[in-house]
């Protein structure tokens, strides 16, 4: 197990370095952040001052090394637009997105697992058909359609705060997070339900389940204790990846619901060619993603000894 973890860790470090280099180069394709302001050309003298201010007068490899050096000391630089420390901006956005991701994941795991198990256990029943139809619909409808629809119909009623609203009307975080979390959970829950149904059906056909039944175990024990643990593996993978994606920010959903998370920050920064912020968020997303898929792999190895031995 120890050897497996070390090998997996080394892979992760290489992926992170390769990804940041690619991202850094990619930013220069986005265009010159200092060329224009609205419809007006920024005077050349001003452009020069701005470039010097933000260290863009150095060569690209030099800029990358500076960036990497600063990264290790936790310095993410200042943004091009408002000149605030990028660390402060992330410090505001990351907790908000983490809350959103957490609520969304809890919702979609609960809904997805229950729906998937029901559909598998009562295969071809009314409930199975219902789950199939609903998940097809949920996967087919794009997030922004669900989001805009929820914002127009549900926001402002019951415990869902109005969007948009005057900023002085503060809503507690757990009500503010609900609608965007539901929006995000719909598609994931559908995926999880389908995954769970599929793998559960496969497991239910396995010999050891027949043995368990033959031993005279109750149906509940067979399903929950023997079938569940084995069939939940693909769902664990999916949830791991999904958390990674959600922590990287839900651009469309956060923008629709005026939710100040990482996704909205990224959306704005891309529009502004705000390289330090884009770089910080994407690096953060890469770290989360690589970290989580590593944890998932290790978890796999724990759940299924065959993986760590191969």
């Amino acid at each position, binding site marked *: 197990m120890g050897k497996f973890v070390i090998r997996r860790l080394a892979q992760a470090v290489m992926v992170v370095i390769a990804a940041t280099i690619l991202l850094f180069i990619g930013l220069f394709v986005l265009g010159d952040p200092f060329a224009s302001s*609205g419809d*007006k050309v920024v005077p050349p003298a001003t452009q020069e001052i701005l470039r010097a201010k933000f260290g863009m007068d150095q060569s690209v490899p030099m800029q990358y090394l500076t960036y990497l050096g600063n990264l290790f000391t936790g310095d993410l630089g200042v943004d091009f637009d408002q000149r605030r420390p990028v660390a402060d901006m992330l410090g505001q956005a990351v907790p908000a997105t983490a809350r959103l991701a957490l609520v969304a994941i809890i919702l979609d795991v609960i809904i997805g697992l229950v729906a998937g198990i029901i559909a598998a256990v009562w295969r071809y029943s009314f409930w199975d058909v219902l789950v199939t139809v609903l998940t097809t619909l949920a996967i087919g409808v794009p997030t922004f359609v669900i989001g805009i629809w929820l914002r127009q119909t549900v926001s402002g009623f019951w415990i869902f705060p*109005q969007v*948009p609203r*005057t900023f002085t009307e503060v809503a507690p975080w757990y009500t503010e997070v609900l609608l965007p979390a539901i929006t995000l959970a719909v598609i994931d829950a559908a995926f999880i339900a389908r995954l769970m149904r599929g793998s559960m059906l496969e497991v239910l056909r396995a010999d050891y389940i027949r043995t368990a039944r033959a031993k005279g175990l109750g149906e509940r024990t067979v399903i929950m204790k023997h079938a569940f643990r084995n069939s939940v593996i693909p769902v664990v993978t999916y949830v791991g990846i*999904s958390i990674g994606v959600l922590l990287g920010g839900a651009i469309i959903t956060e923008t629709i619901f005026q939710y100040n998370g990482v996704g909205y920050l990224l959306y*704005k920064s891309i529009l502004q060619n705000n390289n330090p912020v884009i770089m910080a968020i994407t690096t953060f997303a890469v770290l989360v993603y690589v970290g989580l898929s590593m944890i998932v792999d290790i978890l796999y190895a724990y759940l299924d000894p065959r993986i760590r031995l191969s």
Partner: protein
Amino acid sequence: MRKQAWLRAAAGLTAAALVLTACSQKSNEGTSGSNTGANEPSAGWPQTDVPELKPGKKGGTFKLAIVEPTAIDVYNAQESEGILVASHLFTGLTITTYDGKVEPGVADKWETNDDCTEWTFDLKTGTKFHNGEEVNAESFKRGWERVAAKDSASEVAYHMAGVEGFDEMQAGTATTLSGVDATDPAKLKVKLTEPDCEWYVRTSHTVFSPVPSTAGTPTSNPAFVEQPIGNGPFMMDGPWQHNVGIKLKRFDGYTIQDPAYLDSVEISITPNGAADEYAGYQNGQFDWARMPVPVLSQARAEYEPKGQWITRNTNGMNYLLVMVTEKPLDSAKARKAISMAIDRNAIINGVFKGSQTPSTSLVPPAFPDAYQPDVCTACEYNLDEAKKLAKEAGLTEGTKLNFQFNTGGGHEEWTAAVADQLKKNLGLEVDIKGLQFTDLLNNEQQPGASGIFRAAWGADYATPGNFLEPLLSTGAIGAKADEPVTGDNRGRYSNKKFDDLLADAKKEKDDAKRIDLYQQAEKIAIGDDLALIPLWNRTQHRLANADKFINLRMDFHEDPDLRVISIK
């Protein structure tokens, strides 16, 4: 990231599909009426009346939404949103009124020497910053030097170009503005490097605001940038909550003009601009809103009868930038042929549903003193004349015309309609391309660029010179023929007579005579040479809650004029 990429692609595709269908529909509409367009009355909704100011009463909270600005500190406030906050937190030497006139601010009066290179502003005494500190000449010098310093890296500092000592400060070789003398606290003296008889107009820009002695520099005192202390009719009520909101409250010690009526102003920051503002207005959250273009007609039908609708021609112009030194548009005849082959009314009715007004000048009607309604003789749709001129200019069937615009700004439909009309009316082979804004700009700047480009302009100060000079003067090319353009004259128009008239205007102290010189210059560049092709005036529409408030009007920056708004 996998799923997000997929979603973004899906969103993009859906949006593209919507635009494409809209395009084909709209461009059909755009050209269908073109045969009858010539003698139609000009399209567009009429302006609404500006309300006569009534005495208000103190109290009330005015609510509106904006998108997150770059800065609210005057050292770097730039777009309409930032200026909304900065211009109400600070009052400069002069103030630009809602109708583009310049009136006294902190300066009571001002005068200049014979050649307009030295300006003296007499300051009102006893006016205060929000922290109680007195505003004097030194406050202005301090504020200007804070902007001009290299370390501040202000993106709007260039408005001070021409003040003696500015270049040295930008280069980092000086720490004070040598041309600004504040030894007398009640007099501010400014030396310019070149004559400019209307320089005082610039001083109403927020970048020329005074700052208190506690301001420091933007890098040494970031707290001031987040919560500026100014001398304007409103003050910050707590620091700027990024991406959330900005709260202002009335400054009761304001003596520069009448104090404001409103107790407070709540400016919410939302991500989706006009769409959020409109939704928030509809659900009663905001008292002022812009609207997305597609809902304009519907919103107007609903709110105009209730007296909650504002339509004004504002400080700006939409036009086609023309590369005048490159074939096929290197002759005035060719440019006029293009201009006369565009049926502006049909596009305005078809694409914009009447929400714009066709333009026949470069200096827009928002500058009533200088506006010349018919200076562009070739801005009228006239197919026969267009064909005749095209023939004389060598624009024949199949002549290639490059036409580029920036995507994401709502320009897809009308540019498609213009391209369609040029194809249909003149037989040109129009190569239309949508690009990212930075790429568009880069293409425009390159030597050898040809054809037409989507463009718009708004003046920074209330003078017609701020349209003519940056867009069309030889100096504003800022490059040799084989180098990329560095100024805003990307069409590389150059005409000695035009340049001379502008130079004369800058040396002319008499307002009426100066405007006359500007008008002559515009006649040459637009009337004779048609150096760029005006399309429609900048027309802005707002919803304003007249049920609760009076004196609702749009200021020079298209923001609500918070100085005068009052509860009923």
